[in-house]
């Protein structure tokens, strides 16, 4: 960086307060936030949704929504007071010194302009035109390591995958060589493998560009891998700050402590104890806070916490904590008792037996094999985790089970030994109620025009065959089993928070005593504390009702917590299938190995990671031989390209589709396996 601002801090927020005007009242969103990002530093801002993370980002570039206003404090970019800039100076500042990358690259790029045009536009603003601008644009694409940049220049955004779109967005953000780069949840919508690539890229660019970074994420692990320092935001206040290593390994605020405990870590499993949760809820925006904002949810809180707002205590070494009792924050008692009674493994006959299931769609006249020759079996009370990148056929497989789409002829699905009709309409009432689903997005899954009582009563009537008094009694029990109360019955879904809505969706799935419940990313739209509560609920219901789950999630930590068996899917094929522990601890399929390696981990320093090259191939035109050979880091030769490997049994119950013999996989992965087993 050549600017003279080297000496100044890249970003300095002093006592920043922001309010949104809602219903003729200013509601505080940020309360006296002090934050400094030094030149070249990467600063992470974490916290649950609604705590004000994005508002910080929008304030810095003065892009607050119309009803938002800065009510106090100051913002300095490179030593310049952003608040005092006139509109032209503000425009220049945005053009020259600060850039932003948003969560959804599909929305950040103009859908009707070619990538090349969108990039050259930025250089034209700086006075570079024609061939020179094109060359610079090409250089930018090279810098973000996009394959075949010349052809990408000619394409429209919709012709690129999500990961490539985000690379282009990053290229655009870096084009003006900003001194400050703001990344607002840049990898949240991406697959773990793609996320890992984008994070690697950001890490490399940091070293090349020396731009300062404000990295906003709800994902603690991502922040811990990317940032030098981290700030924890709660109810619009900075409650803890310090170096990333200190904050995550030795948190000094009960909120940080609780947040870290909500995550299933270190290969934790459901039979090893419940996840901890955070009781209560974030104070609403604009709430009048007396004392500590976290006091209502904190088991350590005393009278002093409720009466006297804690200052930001300086703990030395650049560490700050807004807690009166920061020295004993880690003694925070669990909100949820960990102990659960051991479940006896059963040797019951399988509840679900899938043999040779196929689904072929027609795509532009070509067959697209979304699910190919999938066979799995599942016992009562067990969870089958489905993992794989998007496009691997997880959701299609779930829809085949549910009967929402009919499979190809041949193949069979057996429920408790009886064959299930391919189409939902031809299944019996008993079979229909036996297989239910919890959808990813409760806003879509719950009818917004109906009250919760209507939604659940209808499910009990249709699935439980109940009516009148028995229905009312059962409704009460059902509502209590998902830890809702009568008060929640009268309202419409929109009046409930995301976690409560998901409980209603779970209650609905359980209305008819199902044998199998498909959980399609049920927690991916939720905050970690809410996620922990939902996972606990699912585990409780399972042990009580002996129900089996098909659990789909991109979060491998969550899958590992809940699953007894894992199926790894790639291009509609099972690449590996076996007991959860065997699949996770390895030796495993090279694809599984890459997936696991892509997961950012909180409690592990950077070790060598396996990266997959390129994009997942199209299922309409799968590679010959082993479908994974185009991206496989352990490809052994021509045999991979010509001959599709069979699923072979590596150990009893654990099958792998790979030409590399099991013993050889064990030898190759030996160092990694020990590294992947965290303390």
């Amino acid at each position, binding site marked *: 960086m050549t600017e003279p601002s080297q000496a100044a801090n890249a970003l300095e927020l002093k006592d920043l307060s922001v309010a949104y005007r809602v219903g003729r009242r200013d509601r505080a969103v940020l309360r006296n936030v002090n934050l400094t990002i030094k030149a070249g530093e990467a600063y992470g801002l974490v916290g649950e949704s609604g705590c004000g993370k994005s508002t910080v980002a929008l304030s810095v570039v003065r892009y607050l929504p119309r009803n938002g206003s800065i009510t106090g404090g100051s913002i300095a970019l490179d030593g310049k007071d952003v608040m005092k800039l006139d509109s032209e100076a503000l425009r220049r500042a945005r053009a020259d010194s600060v850039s932003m990358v948003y969560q959804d690259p599909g929305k950040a790029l103009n859908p009707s302009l070619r990538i090349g045009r969108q990039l050259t536009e930025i250089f034209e603003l700086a006075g570079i035109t024609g061939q020179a601008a094109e060359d610079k644009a090409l250089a930018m694409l090279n810098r973000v390591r996009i394959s075949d940049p010349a052809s990408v220049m000619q394409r429209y955004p919709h012709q690129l995958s999500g990961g490539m779109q985000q690379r282009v967005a990053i290229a655009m953000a870096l084009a003006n060589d900003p001194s400050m780069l703001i990344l607002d949840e840049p990898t949240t919508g991406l697959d773990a493998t793609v996320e890992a690539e984008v994070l690697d890229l950001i890490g490399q660019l940091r070293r090349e560009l020396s731009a300062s970074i404000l990295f906003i994420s709800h994902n603690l692990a991502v922040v811990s891998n990317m940032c030098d320092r981290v700030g924890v935001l709660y109810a619009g206040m900075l409650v803890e700050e310090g170096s990333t290593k200190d904050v995550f390994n030795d948190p000094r605020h009960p909120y940080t402590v609780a947040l870290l405990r909500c995550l299933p870590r270190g290969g934790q499993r459901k039979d090893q104890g419940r996840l901890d949760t955070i009781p209560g809820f974030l104070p609403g925006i604009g709430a009048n806070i007396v004392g500590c904002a976290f006091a209502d949810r904190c088991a350590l809180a005393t009278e002093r916490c409720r009466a006297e707002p804690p200052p930001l205590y300086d703990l030395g070494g650049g560490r700050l904590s807004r807690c009166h009792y920061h020295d004993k924050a880690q003694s925070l008692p669990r909100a949820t008792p960990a102990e659960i009674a051991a479940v006896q493994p059963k040797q019951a006959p399988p509840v679900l037996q899938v043999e040779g299931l196929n689904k072929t769609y027609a795509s532009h006249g070509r067959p697209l094999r979304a699910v190919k020759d999938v066979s799995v079996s599942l016992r009562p009370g067990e969870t089958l985790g489905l993992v794989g990148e998007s496009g691997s056929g997880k959701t299609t497989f779930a829809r085949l089970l549910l009967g929402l789409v009919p499979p190809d002829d041949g193949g069979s699905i057996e429920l408790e030994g009886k064959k299930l009709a391919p189409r939902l309409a031809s299944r019996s009432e008993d079979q229909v109620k036996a297989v239910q689903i919890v959808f990813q997005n409760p806003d879509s899954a719950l009818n917004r025009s109906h009250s919760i009582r209507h939604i659940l009563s209808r499910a009990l009537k249709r699935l439980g065959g109940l009516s009148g008094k028995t229905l009312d009694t059962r409704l009460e029990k059902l509502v209590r089993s998902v830890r809702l109360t009568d008060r929640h019955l009268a309202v419409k879904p929109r009046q409930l928070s995301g976690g409560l809505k998901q409980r209603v969706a779970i209650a609905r799935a359980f209305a008819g005593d199902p044998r199998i419940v498909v959980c399609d990313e049920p927690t991916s739209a939720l905050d970690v504390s809410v996620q922990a*509560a939902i996972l606990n609920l699912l585990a409780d219901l399972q042990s009580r009702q002996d129900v089996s789950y098909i659990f789909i999630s991109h979060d491998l930590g969550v899958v590992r917590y809940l699953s007894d068996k894992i199926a790894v899917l790639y291009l509609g094929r099972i690449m590996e299938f076996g007991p959860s522990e065997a699949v996770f601890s390895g030796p495993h399929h090279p694809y599984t190995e890459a997936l696991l390696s892509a997961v950012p981990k909180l409690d592990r320093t950077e070790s060598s990671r396996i990266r997959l090259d390129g994009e997942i191939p199209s299922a309409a035109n799968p590679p010959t031989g082993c479908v994974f050979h185009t991206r496989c880091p352990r490809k052994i030769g021509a045999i991979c390209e010509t001959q599709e490997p069979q699923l072979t049994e590596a150990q009893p119950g654990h099958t792998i589709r790979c030409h590399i013999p099991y013993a050889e996989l064990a030898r190759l992965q030996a160092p990694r396996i020990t590294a992947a087993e965290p303390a």
Partner: protein
Amino acid sequence: MSATDTPASLPAPSAPDATRRSPWGEVLHSLSRSGTFLTGLFILLFWVVCALFGQHFVPYDPLESDIINALTPPAADHWFGTDQLGRDVFSRVIVGSRDILTVAPLATILATIAGTALGLVIGYFRGIVDDIVSRVLEAFMAIPVVIIALLAIVALGTSKITVIVVIGLSFAPIIARTVRSAVLAERELDYVAAAKLRHEGALHTMFVEILPNVIPPILVETTVRLGYAIFAVATLSFMGFGIQPPSPDWGLSISSNYGMIGGGFWWTVLFDALAIASLVIGVNLVADGVHGAFND
């Protein structure tokens, strides 16, 4: 594991958020602050009051002829003048809103009911049903209302019922198309899949699950169609296919007087024309307001 509901095992659920207005409350609030909507509503209500009570406060019987005072220009005793039969134009304009404000809304309601049912069916079933019905509707929409009216009148004879049926049925396809596109978006939502997973019948899914969620676009389309229906009724009456004499209906009055504009008797036509215009504008302002309130 013990099956006890240990209260500590999950966080206490919060009280439902009652501070937020319901979506309908939001719409009403927004309407009450919309100048467009309130202006339109004022005009519309004015004509509704005229239709309901006009006959009690007009200075003359709108049907009573007074040949001696025929075609007098606007003056103190006849504010809007008199027509060729000496009838008071002011009284006729005020009372003339009655038939059009009966026929047009009824036609619109018929169009809405028929169009909604049709739109739900083709949007929900899609595929071959949609292909066939949509093509038939498009063919139907290509025929001018007047032609359909002529055919209907030949078949059914002139009456208000005929006008209602003709306009109602010719507007139904337009509403059906709007409903269809709303249903197409709605049926992809997971609550529809959830209904299938309860073995709900198609009728339940369409009318109980989907219909309440597509009410907003239907309401907007209905108010827009009401404006067009008023225009259509006036046109048919003007052509003699609509409301029949001796009603003081505006379209009918213009039709029987427009030949006299050449003779300089402009007042026999102008006030009826302004009345139609004001009513159509009023309804369209209401429609704009409703559209704005739902799309905020």
